[in-house]
């Protein structure tokens, strides 16, 4: 036995490194990591197209927003710091900050834009949720919320670049609109203090084959037919696919790579009126 202590230790170290490298030989590991993040597209991906021009009308946007509030018992909290919004109006310059340049006309900058959750293909809110209270539903691509599981950490609110999520700072029930019999306008569950909520693309309506409440309400306003279009982008025959194929559309903050599924139709929009009724 001519092994010295030094040599024995050296061989031991080499062997340890060798054993540590063994997992690298597993081909499955490399194949898995090479696949792109969103390699598993959902069978259906609901999407919405908002006509920027038609939705500049106050009554159209108000119809959408109030239909949403009524459908989901969304509370109207008076304090703007604590406001809860599923679909709301934002100025063009805030909805599309990367589209605005030094010479964008003021009328355009301040033009009202209807905004909501984008139900992203690659949603950052889902990645940060520690309890899987929010997730991308594989069956229809809706970014869902499970209020039972939300612990109110608000990571998702920090992660969402569109500000599409609202936190219930207090019990929302006193702020829910009631009918004459003091009942909420809808059977949809209200939320509790301490949970985050957002648009769900009206999953409860969509599953019974009806369009989202905002889409139905907007298209019912006379002269605003087609203001909002809803459909499956993975179906080439759907209305949304047809519009996306034939007209120029934009999305909010595409450069972030979130893959929004709410599109904005811009082709027919003439120069906006200079009045600021919608701002």
């Amino acid at each position, binding site marked *: 036995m001519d092994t010295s202590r030094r040599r024995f230790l050296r061989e031991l170290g080499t062997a340890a490194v060798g054993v540590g490298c063994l997992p690298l030989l597993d081909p499955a590991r490399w194949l898995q990591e090479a696949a792109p993040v969103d390699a598993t597209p959902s069978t259906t991906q609901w999407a919405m197209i908002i006509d920027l021009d038609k939705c500049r009308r106050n009554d159209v946007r108000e119809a959408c927003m109030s239909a949403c509030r009524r459908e989901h018992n969304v509370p109207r909290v008076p304090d703007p710091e604590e406001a809860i919004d599923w679909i709301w109006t934002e100025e063009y310059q805030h909805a599309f900050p990367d589209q605005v340049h030094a010479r964008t006309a003021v009328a355009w900058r301040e033009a009202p834009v209807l905004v909501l959750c984008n139900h992203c293909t690659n949603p950052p809110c889902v990645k940060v949720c520690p309890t899987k209270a929010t997730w991308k539903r594989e069956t229809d691509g809706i970014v869902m919320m499970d209020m039972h599981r939300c612990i109110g950490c608000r990571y998702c609110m920090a992660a969402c670049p569109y500000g599409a999520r609202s936190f219930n700072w207090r019990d929302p029930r006193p702020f829910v609109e009631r009918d004459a019999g003091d009942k*909420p306008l809808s*059977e949809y569950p209200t939320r509790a203090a301490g949970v985050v909520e957002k648009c769900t693309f009206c999953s409860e309506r969509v599953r019974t084959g009806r369009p989202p409440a905002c889409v139905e309400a907007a298209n019912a306003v006379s002269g605003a037919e087609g203001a909002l279009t809803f459909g499956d982008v993975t179906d080439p025959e759907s209305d949304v696919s047809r519009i996306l194929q034939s007209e120029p559309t934009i999305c909010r903050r595409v450069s972030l790579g979130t893959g929004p599924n709410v599109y904005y139709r811009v082709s027919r929009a003439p120069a906006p009126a200079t009045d600021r009724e919608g701002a």
Partner: protein
Amino acid sequence: MRDRTGIILGLGAFLLILAYPVWQALGSTADPARPALQRSVDPSGCVEDTTYMVARHQDLLNTWRTDVVRDGRRFYPATSGKEYEMSLTGTCMGCHTDSQAFCERCHAYADVTITCWSCHVAPEGL
């Protein structure tokens, strides 16, 4: 050995006290405090049999929630072969129309707090 009687008596008394819940329950066959629950509006029966529903309705509701919210399913195939829409306000409260007289009364008796109605809209209002 002089303490034997005392020890046996003491042990007996101790066991008797320890078994209080058992003999107290045996003594009263009919519990007068048992709440009278609202009967279902629909006499054709619940989604599952009563014994199962009394013991396991909470698990059933949790499963329904996961199926509807997470997996996007709508209908529950019952053991009887019938299919029911999985909906607390629609299906359950369609028959048990009064959450106070049905859910709350029994839960108060069992001393189990439920939070369902702090969000879900009970049929008789909030």
